[in-house]
């Protein structure tokens, strides 16, 4: 087998591994909605800070709550927040990007100056600023991260629109007498779907990481609700006596991110012809 053939199957294998990881995470989140070994919020002071055992597979936290149950409940919270945020950022960003790319002229230029300025906020900064206004809450995070990542979507979508709006088939649609709106909806938006899918996959990873980071900083979902990020934050003071409190939530974040990254790479290889090699 040539090196090239091995590489090809390696890329595919990675995509499959990524997919399997994501299926497991989603399954854990779905099961967590209906059933967890213990009530993730039930306090049991007698059983606080117990190591992993047959009764509590992944141990208990400083209030005696079952870590596995909280991780499952956290999977649900974190994936729900990430999914909502990605939808919010993607739909909003696509709408703005398509309109900007289609209008061109001064309206487009104005939107892009504003967009670029929002992109000038590095990393978590814009989200931190928005959280300062809204305060730590579930919806606050979705709004903050959605607004923080929307400019990236706008940028990508506008680029795609600009690259296809002058193509002959778009011109043909106009010549046939279709309105600008129909042309946009029928011929331009569908061509944005592949790059948006690739972007949305990466976005899901970024948002999950950002949400964990915000929760870790105490600016995310407030306790007692469990997210992987706030479990890390509340477990941190006990790192010496109960290391499982920080090991397992972080492991969950890392494995999920790995799954998304592998899946994202595989999707990019398949869907983005410019990246295909």
């Amino acid at each position, binding site marked *: 087998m040539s090196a090239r053939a091995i590489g090809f199957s390696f890329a595919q294998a990675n995509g499959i591994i990524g997919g399997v990881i994501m299926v497991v995470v989603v399954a854990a989140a779905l099961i967590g909605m209906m059933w967890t070994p213990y009530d993730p919020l039930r306090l049991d002071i007698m059983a606080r800070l117990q190591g992993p055992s047959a009764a509590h597979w992944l141990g208990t936290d400083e209030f005696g709550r079952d870590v596995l149950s909280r991780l499952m409940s956290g999977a649900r919270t974190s994936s729900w927040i990430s999914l909502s945020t990605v939808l919010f950022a993607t739909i909003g960003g696509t709408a703005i990007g398509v309109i900007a790319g289609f209008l061109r002229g001064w309206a487009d230029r104005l939107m892009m100056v504003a967009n670029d300025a929002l992109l000038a906020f590095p990393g978590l900064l814009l989200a931190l600023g928005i959280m*300062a206004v809204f305060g730590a809450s579930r919806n606050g995070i979705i709004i903050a991260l959605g607004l923080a990542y929307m400019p990236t979507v706008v940028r990508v979508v506008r680029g795609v629109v600009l690259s296809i709006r002058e193509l002959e088939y778009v011109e043909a649609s106009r010549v046939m007498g279709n309105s600008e709106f129909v042309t946009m909806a029928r011929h331009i938006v569908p061509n944005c779907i592949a790059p948006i899918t690739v972007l949305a996959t990466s976005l899901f990873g970024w948002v999950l990481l950002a949400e964990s980071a915000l929760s870790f900083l105490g600016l995310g979902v407030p306790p007692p609700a469990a997210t992987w990020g706030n479990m890390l934050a509340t477990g941190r003071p006990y790192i010496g006596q109960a290391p499982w409190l920080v090991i397992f939530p972080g492991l969950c974040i890392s494995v999920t991110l790995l799954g998304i990254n592998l899946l994202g790479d595989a999707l990019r290889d398949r869907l983005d012809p410019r990246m295909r090699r």
Partner: protein
Amino acid sequence: MLRFVLQRLAMAIPTLLIVAVTVFVLMRLVPGDPASLMLGDLASAGQVEALRKQMGLDQPIPVQFAMWFGNVLSGDFGRSINTGQDVLPLIFDRFSVSATIVLLAVGIAALIGVPIGMIAAWRQKGALDLGIITGATLLLSIPSFWLGLMLLLFFGLQLGWLPVVGYVSFGQDFWAALLYIAMPVATLVLVETGVITRMARASTIEVMQLEYITHARAKGLSEPAVLWRHAFKNAFAPTWTIIGLILGNLLGSIAVIETVFTIPGLGRLLVDSIYARDYPVVQGCLLFIAGIYIVVNLIVDMLYPLFDPRVTI
């Protein structure tokens, strides 16, 4: 040359202005009146009114913005509500801590990641490449704050080799500073090496597919000559841009690492001020970090021609 610099500077001005407007508007959206926030609950209506007048809060919003932005440009970022300290010196003080960590980490990560990424690209689809790309993907999937906690658990608590919390500046005691900074820097190096390696690999592969590489090979240049003189040199330019972006981005999210290792940096100042509802400090930090990010990108752009011979200024 000068023309390019001036043009690039002129392009940064509207960005900076809109960033300032965004920060200003955000802080205005905060529920509650800044004057009564500053005076606390016990102040009388008359006192609040007087302070509102003094702060210019009775003026129309655009006037307020102009006044505030004028002050910012002259280096007056206002005062902390809680401590009464001037905001800008406070920011500079904390910034030196964060900047030390970020610069060291990104510098080391680039020195490791760029060559490794290029080697991977050179051996594209070989076993070495697959190993490197797998390692890099694993590294960049680990959240920095968790990796930090794991290093802390292992090297700090289990082995007891390194101090667990705190910060000593290099000016105070060089060797102690090195010990304190080792784990935060190592954490960021590990994560960012993953990112930089992948980027360096991708841009090298892109260059290696170009015709002039085939041409260089066809005219009988040795493989090292092709790689060194033609491929690597051109592949570094896009990586350089990414390194600049990483530098700025890390400043925006350094708070998590500073939280793990209890380091008094700029990120921690921002988060603590958000908790304390100390809005002048929050505002100052947001503006300062965004400003630094813009300046870093400006510098990266200006140095770009050093790495990409096709671009001259």
